[in-house]
Each structure stands twice: as structure tokens, then as C-alpha cells.
């Protein structure tokens, strides 16, 4: 059943912008991205929106719908009442380029700051052998589609621009965890997690987990286990002593 949906879309660029009201036809089974496209086709041909797969797999269409970080292509119109005004705004945490399109290069900078996978000395590509149980934890994190919704929602940087310098954000702390839990990674990730990537800023309030479209348990499976590892290294005198006495280095 088609009806006229009420959209309130943010339009503008880095200098100025505002929410503008539109009425757009909505049909059964459609998602917010469909309406944004219809809006482009019928009323606002210069509306900027980034998208690619329309299947929740490319991570391009990240924005905020009624103030919640969402993939536009996975947000069903059926989740809203027909007379509801639906706001569609760009991700707040990143600089806006135009309309719904933001500049997410902060994330690429942070990605580059993490040293790549480091195999043990003497092991050549092609000689890697590992057990499934040993890579399972890292595999959960590989489901990430890099939509950066978790980065957008994290209050550490969303509400405090100045923290961007020292905080890598949930997506990249999870990358650190992925490498730390990888059976063949020989890099030391724990110290860097706290000092270089700002793990201590996270107060485990779980918004990243709440918004992740892939359902990755970012906080429980990546951030908290990393915090526990940092506690081993930095704040636990008994583990520290044990490591000294038995010369253990990861088991």
C-alpha cells in the first residue's frame, strides 16, 4: 500500500545546513534508501548520498535515521508509523562533505596506525598452519563491513572531537584484538592498545555493539578481553611476577 512518508533530511555542507521536510511516496517492502533515491529522482536531484550494494554488505550507506546510526539500505520503512516524521541525517562524528555524505578518512588514518599482521620469524607465506579453534575469535571480527557506524556512535569521539587524536575507536581496537588473538601473529599488541590506540578511553558502554549491523559482539569479545590483557600487563602484579619467574610469553 503506497502512502506519502514524511522525511526530514539534512541538507547542506561544511559551512551550513539544515533539516528540510519532504513528502515521498513509500511502497510496501521498501527501505529508507529507496525513499532517498525516489526523493533524488523526483524532487531533489542534487541530493548527495553514498551507497553501493543495497544489501547491507558494502557499508557505504551509513547515516542516522531518527538519530540512530543505521545503514539506510537495511532500515525498513515498516518499522515506522505512516504518519511519523523520519529524520535522515549524516553521521555526526565525521566532517560532512555534502548532505548525507561524510568524510570518513579519520577511520583510514586509524587503520594505518595499526602494524600489519606479523608472522613469526622464519615462517614463510604458504607455511602457515593453524587450528580452527584458534582462529575462531578473530573470524568473528572479520565479519566487519567497515560501515563505521560503531565509530560514529562511540561517545568518546562523537561528543569529544579532541579525543580523535588519541582514540582509535571500536572498529580499530577490534582490529588490534583480532591480531592479538591470532595464533600466528607475533606482534606485541597489548601495550600499544592502551598507549597508542587509546583503549582506556572506552568505558564499555556498548553503543558500538548496539549499532553494529553485523551483530559483532565488539565490547564483550574484543574490547573487554583487550582490557583484561592490558590489566595482565600493566596492573596485575601477580601475573607480572609469574611472567618474570616462568618466563612465559603468551601460552
Amino acid at each position, binding site marked *: 500500500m503506497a502512502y506519502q512518508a514524511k522525511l526530514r533530511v539534512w541538507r547542506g555542507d561544511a559551512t551550513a545546513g539544515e533539516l528540510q521536510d519532504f513528502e515521498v511516496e513509500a511502497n510496501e517492502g521498501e527501505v529508507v534508501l529507496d525513499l532517498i533515491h525516489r526523493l533524488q529522482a523526483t524532487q531533489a536531484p542534487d541530493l*548527495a548520498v553514498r551507497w553501493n550494494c543495497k544489501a547491507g554488505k558494502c557499508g557505504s550507506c551509513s547515516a542516522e535515521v531518527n538519530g540512530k546510526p543505521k545503514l539506510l539500505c537495511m532500515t525498513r520503512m515498516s518499522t515506522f508509523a505512516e504518519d511519523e516524521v523520519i529524520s535522515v541525517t549524516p553521521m555526526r562524528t565525521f566532517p560532512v562533505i555534502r548532505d548525507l555524505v561524510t568524510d570518513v578518512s579519520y577511520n583510514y588514518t586509524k587503520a594505518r596506525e595499526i602494524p600489519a599482521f606479523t608472522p613469526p620469524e622464519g615462517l614463510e607465506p604458504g607455511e602457515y598452519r593453524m*587450528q580452527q579453534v584458534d582462529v575462531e575469535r578473530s573470524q568473528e571480527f572479520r565479519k566487519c563491513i567497515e560501515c563505521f557506524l560503531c565509530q560514529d556512535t562511540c561517545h568518546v569521539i562523537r561528543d569529544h572531537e579532541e579525543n580523535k587524536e588519541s582514540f582509535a575507536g571500536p572498529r580499530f581496537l577490534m582490529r588490534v584484538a583480532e591480531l592479538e588473538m591470532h595464533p600466528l601473529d607475533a606482534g606485541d599488541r597489548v601495550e600499544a592498545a592502551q598507549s597508542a590506540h587509546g583503549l582506556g578511553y572506552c568505558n564499555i558502554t556498548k553503543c558500538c555493539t548496539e549499532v553494529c549491523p553485523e551483530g559483532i559482539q565488539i565490547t564483550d569479545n574484543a574490547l573487554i578481553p583487550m582490557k*583484561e590483557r592490558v590489566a595482565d600487563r600493566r596492573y596485575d602484579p601477580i601475573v607480572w611476577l609469574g611472567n618474570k619467574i616462568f618466563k612465559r610469553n603468551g601460552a
Partner: protein
Amino acid sequence: MAFDVASPSSTDTPPPARASIPARTLRTDRWWLPPLLTTLGLATFVVYATVRSFMRSDYWDAENHYLTPFYSPCLSDSCVAGSSHFGTPIGELPGFIPLAFLSLPFLLGFRLTCYYYRKAYYRSIWMAPPACGVGEPHERYTGETRLPLILQNVHRYFFYAALVITIINTYDAILAFGGENGFGIGLGNVVLLLNVVLLWCYTLSCHSCRHVTGGRLKHFSRNPVRYWTWTQVSRLNTRHMQFAWLTLGTLVLTDLYVWLVSSGAIADLRFIN
């Protein structure tokens, strides 16, 4: 033309800035409800627990040998006869010290530094953030990077202490099957037992427990027993929040039951003897 506007490198591009959206949040749901309920829930427990811990009466039911967890272990001469399952190595205690002064601070510390409760009170009381996508009221934010919040890292030590106290609570619950007239089972036993079972679920589902049992390993395949243990703890761990609230509930319920029975307000419902 269209490309020109969208390209950040064109010469007249303004310096990067966020989209100007003055509203603190555009959320339209009742995002303030969960933090409000959390605050009320925590406050209720804190008030109840404080009052009871200092009350010093009706914590031991001499007839059925029910001891409330709020007074366990009771180690001083001020404890009523029978309630001290581990003797009374400590003399009289002045009234402003709770009789369970040896366990309460650790239990408080355990819950205060618990990863779940941290989330709960950071959101509801400190409002950092009150809900996802809702601006927090603070000017600056440093999270757990410095004192005092960096001390949250001691959680694992509270976990070890909590293990010991849970064992003591379990012992209390087992002793409660033998009342004045020997073995018997009453509703109080069921309440005490339920409380202890849930306390075990809460304690073992702790993130620090998950870490020490196996989470800290890089190679599960070399440590099959610890891997199995980690798997079980992980299963419990997904319900850690539920156990956190359930145990607050059963602690109050257990204490209230012992209070009512030992003060004579209600009679214990007996099933056997």
C-alpha cells in the same frame, strides 16, 4: 559540476566541519527510560542493603538456621549465638561497623568494578553517554585512562574475593538444611539455595573469570581443558547482565525472607520436618 561540489579537494572547499545539527539528539524513542530504570533499581538496592547491613537484628533464624547473606560471615562476639559458622575470632564490634564488614566491602567492590555495572552506572548516573546517539553533558572526557577510574582494572582481585565469599554463602545455605530439630526443608532453604545458585552464575560469568579460565590464551588447541572451561564460562557470560540484576533481586528477597521469618512476622513454610 556535481563532482565539483562533492570533491573535498576543490579549491573553494570549506575546512572540514561536522554537519550543523543543534539538537542534542534526534532520537524519538524513550531513550531516557532505561537509564532512569537503572538508577531507580540501583538506588533501591543500595538503600535496602545499607539499612539492613547496619540494622543488626533479624539476620539469623535460630529455629531453621537461616542466615542472611548480608551478615555472612559473622565473625565477631556481637553476632547472635549460632550465626557464626566460622567462630568469633573478632571481639565486640562498635555499632557503626556492619557485622559482615569482612565481606561487604569486597562484594561492593566486585559489583562496582564489574564490567556490566560499569556500563550501567556510566550510562545512568554519570550519563557518559545516557543512551547511544544522545550527547553527554560533560565538557571533557578521559574515560578510564586516569585516576580514579583507572582503578577499575583491579576487578579481577575482587573476583577472587567474591569466589571465596560465594563459597561461604554456599556453606551457609547447606548448613541451613539442619535446623534446631535436625534435617528439614522449608521454603527458606529453597530461597537460600536459589540465591546461591544465581550468585554462582553471576560470579562465574564474570569477564575476568572468562579471561583467566582461558580467554588469555592465544592457542586454544594446545589447552583443551581450559578451552572447554572458557567455552562454558563464555556461555554464561552472554547472560552476565541478567545475572547481575537477578542476583540483586534474590539477595534482597533472601534477606527479606530471613528478616520476616526470624522476626516472627511470618512462619517458614515447611515441606519436610
